């Protein structure tokens, strides 16, 4: 009851803008072709946490995976030393250098290879300019920012010109702080389509943050590298965007299922199959929704908090490219932008973790010769973080009846 009381004002606040502005003519529908098992997403008295067993199983798989990743990450320094100096100490020459760089890549440490640096520079250039391509694409399709937000014919021309002006600023790298303010302002304007649209477009803000923190004389300099602070903000905003999108997939499960009904190929993904393993095939679509969503939650969380950013960023790159080329085709061409943003992070040598303090505690315990405390600290932190990250909202959502959404 308390939880409901707590959630109610949050839900009311979140829905307020939708009721303030009524514009259902422009809402994009994802055509659900077959009914879902509505009870799957609700409360199940007598079950652990009152959750549907398959949902609980997928959640547990995601939670364990997160615990494992966190545990390994907090010991990454020690593992690196162990592998390089104990296991592979006989290696010499190119093989030794290759494994060293590979280990650095996987553990988010600087990769000092010239070609890696060059790709990183190119990724930053693409990241800063690709939004202009997306804006131009949207303008030619009578939409705003993304084809999901079609423009009213009566005002389309003005919004299209504004997008063109913004695209010119981006392409010529002129007055980037102004471009950043316009990106953030446009994102706020997306409240016009409702809070779901705003959540959907959070990744758009990522580039806005970089623009805002660029100099006014941006047209005079070649921006090929992001500062440590900018990388941090890109990671936080992009990661949070995907974390939110992941949760929205479960919250608004009809819409997610609607996409799958129209593009059945998206259901055949090895990573999602992994999350959904051992579940009841009678709830195939429901399991897919939760597995897909939690895969995205995990990716977003890892990127946001800086846990194996490159590994998860690489997985995200793979998924985006697959969605753009294999599953959705030309309709998803705006995915160039999140691909560029993710690539800018993956190929950055300035990655940091928001949980670095746990690593420090662990290392301090190691210096003091307290091995049990090291393992206990890391294990405790990993379990708490993973359980909170996966189960808090998954559990809370079962209290909210979304069958009529």
């Amino acid at each position, binding site marked *: 009851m308390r939880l409901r009381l707590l959630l109610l004002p949050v839900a009311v606040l979140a829905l307020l803008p939708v009721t303030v502005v009524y514009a259902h003519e422009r809402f994009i529908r994802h055509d659900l072709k077959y009914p879902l098992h509505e009870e799957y997403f609700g409360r199940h008295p007598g079950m652990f946490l009152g959750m549907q067993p398959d949902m609980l199983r997928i959640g547990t798989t995601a939670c364990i995976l997160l615990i494992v990743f966190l545990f390994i990450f907090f010991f990454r320094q020690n593992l690196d030393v162990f592998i390089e100096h104990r296991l592979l100490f006989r290696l010499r020459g190119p093989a030794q250098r290759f494994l060293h760089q590979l280990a650095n890549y996987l553990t988010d440490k600087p990769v000092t290879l010239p070609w890696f640096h060059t790709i990183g520079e190119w990724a930053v250039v693409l990241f800063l300019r690709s939004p202009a391509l997306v804006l131009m694409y949207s303008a030619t399709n009578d939409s705003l920012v993304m084809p999901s937000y079609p423009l009213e014919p*009566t005002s389309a021309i003005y919004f299209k010109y504004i997008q063109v002006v913004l695209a010119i600023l981006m392409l010529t790298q002129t007055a980037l702080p102004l471009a950043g303010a316009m990106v953030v302002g446009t994102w706020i304007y997306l409240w016009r389509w409702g809070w779901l649209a705003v959540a959907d477009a959070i990744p758009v803000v990522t580039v806005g943050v970089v623009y805002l923190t660029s100099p006014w004389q941006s047209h005079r300099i070649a921006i090929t590298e992001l500062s440590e602070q900018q990388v941090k903000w890109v990671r936080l905003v992009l990661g949070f965007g995907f974390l939110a999108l992941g949760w929205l997939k479960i919250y608004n499960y009809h819409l997610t299922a609607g996409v799958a009904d129209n593009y059945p190929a998206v259901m055949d993904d090895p990573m999602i199959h992994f999350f959904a393993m051992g579940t009841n095939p009678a709830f195939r679509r429901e399991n897919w929704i939760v597995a897909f969503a939690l895969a995205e939650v995990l990716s977003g969380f890892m990127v946001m908090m800086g846990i194996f950013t490159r590994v998860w960023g690489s997985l995200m790159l793979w998924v985006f490219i697959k969605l753009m080329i294999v599953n959705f085709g030309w309709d998803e061409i705006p995915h160039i932008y999140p691909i560029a943003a993710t690539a800018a992070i993956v190929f950055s040598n300035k990655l940091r973790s928001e949980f670095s303090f746990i690593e420090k505690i662990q290392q301090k315990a190691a210096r003091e010769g307290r091995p049990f405390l090291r393992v206990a600290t890391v294990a405790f932190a990993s379990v708490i973080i993973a359980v909170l990250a996966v189960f808090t909202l998954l559990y809370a959502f079962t209290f909210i009846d979304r069958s009529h959404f």
Partner: protein
Amino acid sequence: MKFASMKQIIVLTAITCALLFGLDYYKNPQLWHSRSVSMARPGVRLTLWMNHLCCLGCLADVRQALAEVPGIDLANASGPKQLLTQAEANMQGASLPDYGNTVELPISDLEKLDLVAVDKALRDKGFVAGRMELSGVEHFRLEALLEHLCCGMCDRSIQERVAFLKAKGSAGQLKWLDSVSVDHQKKTVAAHARFLEPGKTVDVVEFLSGLNYLGYEPSSLRIISEEKMQHTTHEGE
């Protein structure tokens, strides 16, 4: 290098927001006022949102189409005020905020009003109402007459598929719908509406389209208000 200050960022963002919202408000008034129009007027009303109603010629045709429909007080119907004449509309460069507009119809006799007849009359004249928004009735049900309800499966399919239909309305369609009951003998489907707050509306086109989606074409759709419902209950007793 000179960077933007926090003050500059906030001001520029606020200006962008204001520009976009202002532009939208000025150029798309129909999206901002679609609800407030009906909220301002008391009484039982049917507000037709016509996706095409651009000039006085259109309005005249709509009025003509509805002239024979019983239950509507066409004399007191109010249409958009800023419509162009046909001659003005023919001029190159003539423009309106939108091609679509609303027509508000006071309902003089709720019992006589058949919403399928309204829809058919408009279609026969070459129009389609994008929305038919009912307001001013707090408790009511919509009763659709379905000629084809031949077996128990027909009955069950409607009852069972309505939940799916509500779920399918990801844009919030049919949120007003509380439950559905089927009367096999009378061949009617009743859509029981939730309490309709004063000033709020229910789009009956959602229910009509829903029945079509389920594979049924109603031959009539009537609004049974609270008073009528109580009357029917007493008769039954």
